[in-house]
């Protein structure tokens, strides 16, 4: 039963990841990416890392996906008939990636993994919280610094000057209205 569930989740992950790469429309690729995130979260639950699974759903499915969709909204242009992939020999990349996968999978098969017989600790989330407050206190505070830097950096990079802002939907419609009115009047 667990094997069946694992195979179902694994095929979902791989199928949606492939669709992320081959989807021509970038929004579809984004939605398949969200499906991949969700399936990876399910895999974490199956691996009994419940907290990481919840964090995956909260951060990736909940927040990062919104960021991605907003970024697509802010940058979309007329790309419908353009190819999704760069010009050039993509099969070389495919061959290289398949070679890498072959090397990795052979290595995985060759290593003698020393599997544990230990039972899983019962209270895993409190254990994680204790570790964050003790051994990993410095990385924990550094994570706050990283997030602060990311927030300030992204605001500095993406914020636009009010003087030369790009036209919004309302401006576009106003411009089109103006053009239509001028055409009706017959004045250039």
């Amino acid at each position, binding site marked *: 039963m667990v094997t069946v569930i694992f195979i179902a989740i694994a095929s979902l992950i791989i199928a949606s990841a492939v669709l992320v790469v081959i989807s021509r429309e970038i929004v579809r690729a984004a939605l398949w990416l969200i499906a991949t995130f969700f399936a990876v979260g399910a895999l974490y639950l199956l691996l009994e890392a419940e907290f990481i699974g919840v964090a995956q759903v909260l951060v990736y499915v909940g927040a990062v996906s919104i960021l991605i969709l907003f970024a697509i909204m802010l940058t979309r242009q007329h790309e419908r008939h353009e190819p999704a992939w760069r010009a050039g020999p993509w099969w070389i990349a495919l061959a290289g990636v398949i070679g890498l996968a072959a090397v990795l999978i052979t290595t995985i098969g060759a290593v003698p993994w020393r599997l*544990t017989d230990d039972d*899983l600790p019962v209270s895993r989330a409190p254990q994680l919280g204790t570790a964050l407050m003790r051994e990993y206190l410095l990385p924990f505070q550094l994570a706050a610094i990283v997030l602060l830097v990311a927030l300030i950096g*992204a605001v500095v990079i993406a914020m636009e000057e009010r003087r030369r802002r790009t036209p919004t939907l309302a401006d576009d419609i106003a411009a089109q209205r103006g053009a239509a009115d001028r055409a009706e009047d017959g004045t250039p």
Partner: protein
Amino acid sequence: MSMIDAVPLSWVLTLAAILFCIGLFGVIVRRSLIGVLFGVELMLNAVNINLIAFWRYLEPNLVAGQVFALFIITIAAAEAAVGLAMVIAVYRTRRTIVADDMRNLQG
């Protein structure tokens, strides 16, 4: 019955390896910068699957596996925030997000 008895570790690692390679392929071939970022996110997820699998199958009493995964999720969120902000800034000045058009630094 838990996963550790039913599914061998090598299956999980193979899944992560395949996901990593799909992400790498996406990074190489995608035209738009946002598509390249999607590939990076897939690769980060593959790494996280590896960490959680090692924690569960090899060292379940060592909390580092979960802590590392949590920090990778944090860093990935920060990376997505800054990366997409850069894509927006590039789009504003260039009116394009196609990776091949960014050739200013290429002598």
